[in-house]
């Protein structure tokens, strides 16, 4: 099998995975009986998924907890967080964080 064909079939399979995982509990027509506590607990799922993605991206490098303060990400997150609690704007969080991150990376090499 050529590499392109291999990639093509893999991509088709991945598309099926996207469709099926995203619609999983919407496929059965009949009522899916979820216990009440599961429904309440699921309200925490979006927040938890976000935190689970964000925190390792900030405090880990190559799967290891970072051991230095000379890491541009820490200061970018501090700046972004400060902006968010000051103004409550997500766009401002991104801009202020990047304004700290890029100079630290390019100038200081952090």
């Amino acid at each position, binding site marked *: 099998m050529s590499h*392109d064909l*291999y*990639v093509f079939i*893999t*991509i088709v*399979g*991945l*598309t099926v*995975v*996207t*469709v099926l*995982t*995203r*619609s*999983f*509990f*919407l*496929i059965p*027509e009949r009522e*899916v009986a*979820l216990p*009440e*506590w*599961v429904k*309440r*607990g*699921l*309200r*925490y*799922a*979006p*927040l*938890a*998924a*976000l*935190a*689970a*993605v*964000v*925190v*390792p*991206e*900030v*405090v880990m490098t190559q*799967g290891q907890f970072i051991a230095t303060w000379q890491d*541009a*990400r820490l200061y970018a*997150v501090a700046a*972004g*967080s400060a902006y968010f609690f000051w103004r*409550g*704007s*997500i*766009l401002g*969080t*991104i801009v202020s*964080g*990047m304004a700290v*991150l890029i100079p630290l*990376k390019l100038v200081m090499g952090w």
Partner: protein
Amino acid sequence: MQAMHSLRDTVRHPQFRAGARDMASLTLGLAAWGLVTGVAMSKGGLSIPLALLMTFTVFAGSVQLAVIPLMTVGAPMWVIWATAICINLRFVIFSAQWRPYFMHYPLRQRMLLTYISGDLTYVLFMKRFSEPREGEGQVEYFAGATAASWSAWQLSSVLGILLADVIPTHWGLGFAGVLALLGLTYSLVSDRATALAAAVAGAAAVAAFSLPLRLHIVVAIAAAVCVGLMVDGSSGDAGRRARGAAGGGKASPRKVRSEKCAG
């Protein structure tokens, strides 16, 4: 009312604009992330047509970033698909929550709606509409948010694919996506229970990071859901009895502040 509104009515609905506007504050981060994903596909050895096919069909950034290195080395397809399923497990959890909102649509429309919805649409939507209700323009809001996120993602991905050789990735552009998610996380923290759930999820994700296939995210969700239920004082028999005695029905976790830790 059962059928989906015509496209024109949807786009003109005020909620469509509201959804697009809410998503717009996140598109800078989303676009930076799409750019990085596009570059990764090109640099990972995918030809331009195949990279374009991947972005327009798979449409799942974290899956794409994770499987590109596997495809580059020619890993077995089943390994790649299994990896993608694990990374997408969170969407299975999300789909349980979409159910009450979308069940009145026919199967094919339900699958289409969830297919085009990513993490951000889900989070924004659930933040705005705590219960399914007709006449609030919920599906219009969904469509607006999705239209904005889809365009920002695809435009930036295509740019990344085409300009892979000239885009400087050492600037840390991808971190803009993390900052967008950070702001979104803060905006969901509304009380002690949610703050604690977020802290637990973050700590659990770091602790479980060495698990394969990004399963640490599923572990973190499970941990945070358990802690959230404990803190909102209504898990377990004690909590249920307490709520029953108070004549409480289905209080939302946001309103029930930690009256008692049932654990």
